[in-house]
């Protein structure tokens, strides 16, 4: 009887530890965001939505490269504690996408550019970097169709596809 009790307690502890580990791991993400909450900011033309299976979420948005009046699209994040960022590179990617990343913490602002070549590593997530500011609920991420020197700049499509983030390192 004692052995059965001990066995039951051991199993219970093992189950609880497993559950706790899973919950802790899930708490940090990753969280997936589709292209739907993208906000159009400025520039010529409007972003077009394409529906192809080669886009991760099934309906990427895209714009043609522009060297004169590049457009900007914004995804403003209101969730706190966004830490690592990843951008999905669609199979249809042809050009480089320029991201502009803005973070705030207690009124302190920081921003930087990140260029992601969508013409390589199709179907993979590109690691975009991480934020030093936690929480950083007032920041935003912008994507531009600006033609980036050194990349193919022949009026190709720049895509906005899904992204994901984690809330802890």
């Amino acid at each position, binding site marked *: 009887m004692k052995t059965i009790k001990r066995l039951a307690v051991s199993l219970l502890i093992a189950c609880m530890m497993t559950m706790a580990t899973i919950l802790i791991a899930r708490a940090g993400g990753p969280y997936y965001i589709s292209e739907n909450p993208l906000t159009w900011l400025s520039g010529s033309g409007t972003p077009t939505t394409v529906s192809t299976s080669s886009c991760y979420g099934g309906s990427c948005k895209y714009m043609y490269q522009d060297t004169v009046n590049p457009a900007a699209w914004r995804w403003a994040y209101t969730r706190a504690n966004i830490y690592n960022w*990843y951008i999905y590179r669609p199979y249809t990617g042809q050009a480089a996408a320029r991201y502009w990343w803005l973070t705030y913490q207690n009124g302190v602002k*920081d921003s930087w550019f990140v*260029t992601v070549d969508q013409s390589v590593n*199709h*179907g*993979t997530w590109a690691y975009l970097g991480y934020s030093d500011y936690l929480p950083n609920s007032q920041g935003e991420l912008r994507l531009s169709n600006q033609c980036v*020197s050194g990349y193919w700049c*022949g009026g190709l499509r720049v895509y906005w596809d899904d992204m994901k983030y984690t809330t802890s390192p």
Partner: protein
Amino acid sequence: MTNSFRNNNNMLSKREIEVLDLLVQGMSNKQIALQIGISEKTAEKHITNIYHKIGVASRAGAIRWALEQGNNGSRVSPHEESRDFPHSKEDETLLRSRQERRLLMKKLDWLISITAGILLGIIALGIGVPRILTETQSVRASSKIDDILTLVLNSHTKWSTVKGEAEITWYDPNGGGKTQTYINQFVIYQPLSAYIDGYNKDKPGFNDNELWISNGMKIYDLDKQSKTYTEGSLPKFASDLSVMPRNLSEVETDTVYDHPFSLLIPAPVKEYIYPEWFAQGNPTTAYTLTGEDNLLGRNTWIVNLKYKTGQATAWIDQSTGMILKYIQEENGQKFAEVTFTSIEVDAPLDASIFTVPPDYHPTEQP
């Protein structure tokens, strides 16, 4: 120990006969217990049962009964020495010598076991070690590509400065045979300072106005035509290389962890300066080592990568892991070709090139 007494009418059990035999030999309860591997209490119980079954009340009675049985010709064991019982000095000597013999036998057993073990071990090593070595060699041979990819992953740890010039030809992915060829001049001073200037070889003045500078704290996109520049912060994560995987086992196959700094550097410079992406996002079976070559006096491995939409072939510098030449095909069409035309690793640099010239003016942030 064999049975010494006939078991008339099956009066005594096999174990009891064994115990009685030892009793006759003059052993104490403790000795009997030790001899046949039972507890002293069990031995005592066996003896009590024997007393009860043969109708005696003492040890002496039991021995007497046993001897009587023996004198009646029922003795079957070779314990001849028991005939001179009860206990004498001679008996004690005999008993001691027998126990010594048993101990010696035990020691011999151990010695034989250990020797056999050692011999078996030697045989196993003789057969197994050469096989293990052969297998290790074959594993090493097959993991050559892993070593090369690991070098590429850690390329940024193999040099501190590099300057050079590369020619990059982009093929129109929509077909039609159009190309754009740039000549990139670049200077990189690890980890965060860089100067990259591009010229359009085919159409001078078209899309080649940009100059890219990082002084280690800020990054600047300079427009050479309008003499303006856009200032951006250097990502804080750019200086933290701990986010980079160092081993192939740490790389998730569906994620490409570009070098933090390389995300700021225009392609394709980053592909031969910070070429981590080449070793990521694909299973190692997608890579083939196709041969070796010598470019600009440097030994290279030629590695082919096949992926879902195309393939890439890279000439990887054997000492730094940099990609010195690179041809990429997408959907069966040539997409890009990059070739170093000069390279200088760890040469002294003029730090002033990482500063924006005074005749440039800032533009607004996006």
